[in-house]
């Protein structure tokens, strides 16, 4: 886990470990990604996920993020998702789920 100050979306966050999630958020990878994502919630009370490696998102991917958000809330983990590429963010917005899924860092 890289410890570093990262600038994400114009905000500087220092001292937080960023967990980079590799690969696309699609149905092809969803089953594989689920345990990986859930595991990140165990790393601390504040978890920052860097999604910039994802080039695609589909409905399965959106659902993954929803589930992750829900589990974070249930376990009182402050989950921050950042780095989502504009074209992927656009899908989340299209579904009207930006408030549920995303949070600003």
């Amino acid at each position, binding site marked *: 886990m890289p410890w570093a100050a990262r600038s994400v979306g114009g905000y500087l966050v220092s001292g937080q470990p960023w967990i980079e999630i590799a690969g696309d958020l699609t149905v092809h990878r969803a089953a594989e990604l689920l345990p990986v994502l859930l595991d990140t919630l165990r790393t601390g009370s504040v978890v920052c996920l860097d999604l910039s490696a994802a080039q695609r998102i589909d409905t399965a991917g959106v*659902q993954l993020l929803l589930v992750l958000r829900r589990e974070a809330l249930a376990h009182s983990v402050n989950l921050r998702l950042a780095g989502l590429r504009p074209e992927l963010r656009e899908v989340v917005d299209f579904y009207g789920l930006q408030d549920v899924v995303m949070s600003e860092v």
Partner: protein
Amino acid sequence: MQFAGDERAGSYLENPLDTFLAESHEHIELFEKLLLDLEAHPEAAAEGFGALFRSMHTIKGMAGMVEQPTIEFFAHVLEEVLDRLRAGQVRLERELVSLLLAGGDHLRLLLSAAASGQPGGGEFADADRARLIGALTPYLESAMAAPVTALVPATPMPVGGRWQVSVRFDPHVLRQGLDPVYFLRHLESLGRVSGLKAHADAMPPLASYDPEQCYLYFTLQLDSMADKTAIEQVFAFVLEACELRIKAPPEIEAGWRERLENQPDDAQRLGELLCDIGAVTPRELQRALAAQSDSEHPLHGLGIGAILARQGAVASDLVTEVAIHQQESRVRQPAEVASVRVPREALEHLLSTVFNLAGVAHNARHYQDRVGPGLAGEIEAMSALTADAMEGARRLLTQRAGEAFRRLYRAVRDLGTQLGKAVDLTLEGEDLEIDRLQAESLGEAVLHLVRNALDHGIESTAVRVAAGKAPRGRLSVSVAYEGNELVLCVADDGCGIDCEALRARAVERGLMREGAQRSEAALLDMIFMPGFSTAATAGRTSGRGVGLDVVRQSVRELGGSVQVETELGHGTRFMLRVPVPSKAADHVASNVLRSSRFSNYKVA
């Protein structure tokens, strides 16, 4: 799979994906070549179309085997279009060729992506694919099956509006490469999508969450000039795997109602009518017809309107409207639609006010020539409106006689069958307007008299024939005004009432001394006594609980009387007379003044 060369034989077993990729590229080459040939030489159509179809069909099959759902689905789209091409349902024009070529290119892109380990091909590829699919969809209008061949395509509505769309996909669509986002995006080609919400309340708890299943469902508004079928067609490829509800804008629904009113009155079936005006799509109608005739289906046997409403294809109040228009009683009983129960005080008050208003309007007319033209005009208008209101009041107060007696035909038929007697019923005066207040009581009374006639009056066919009478009994019910009275007659050509039998019965019951003198009229009067009935036939009518005494009583309550005439062997006639005022205006007044008459008032 076909092998083009020996050198590949070994690698197939080692890596199916590689083989799939190589083979598919070849098929796409062939596909492209065929397309260009066919465009240049249309005369080779028949075999060419078959080969085109087969190339895509093969790619689709192989993609399924190596688990490339996106490629499989897209090849399927192309295959469907090619199938219609070879069936002669679409023509290979320039635009279609361009689209198909673009489709081939996109497949190549997908194959490359699969080769480099990125199935799907990237975000922009998705958008391209969605666009292509959207452009190909019009070539897939479904042909209709026989039951609805009478359909006329829905005329496009000249007005647009805000449609409400909700769609729930089957859970397995994601695995099949059918992502909701394609279809929802494609709606944007029909107009402006707003308020799209992905609902997550069906997301299961973690333990039962399958990341490859679809749990989200969607609601949105679409501002569009398209018609319902066009909107439905956006989802053409996924119709069998989703629940789609399309609700039209209020302006469009208003247009439907208007078109319903303008439909010619011939017996067009409800389902076809709704389809004609665009309120349901051909597919929705077909689905409803299938449910109706499928004996296993929960909606089996319901009226088509009810099924369409239950399946969410049409708003239930629109169906009711159509049903009224069609006089179709399967959706709602006419009586339920046509009547309400009201508190009698409210109605009484309203009618009294209307009458007083009529009086004032009448007086005002006397001053018309003494006032300025403005006020004179207003008085004129008021008079006309008051006349309208009085007419409305009259209609509230009266009812067509036929309406009050509508149960008679059925009763005659049912009881006749039960008793084994053949009877013809004639009604006279059905169009007469009778006081609604009286109608219900009179209707009951007549019904009982009719039953009585069937039971005791009309003989069985054998007896009638033996007596030289016509084999079928004749029962007539007539209603008419005679001066200030409403007269109802129930007459039969049966066996008549035997006064001697009456006398014997009266003596038996201790109502008369043996040998006492009584006129025929007095004897006949005894049949109205409670519990008095001819012993021989008591059994048949037992259990009905209503005797001639009740008939007389209810007529008396209306201020009227019952008389009976009879001729032994030839028949019997009952006459009910009730007083009614001769004019509607008097009627309102007298009813208002004699408020005791409202004690039984029900408008029903």
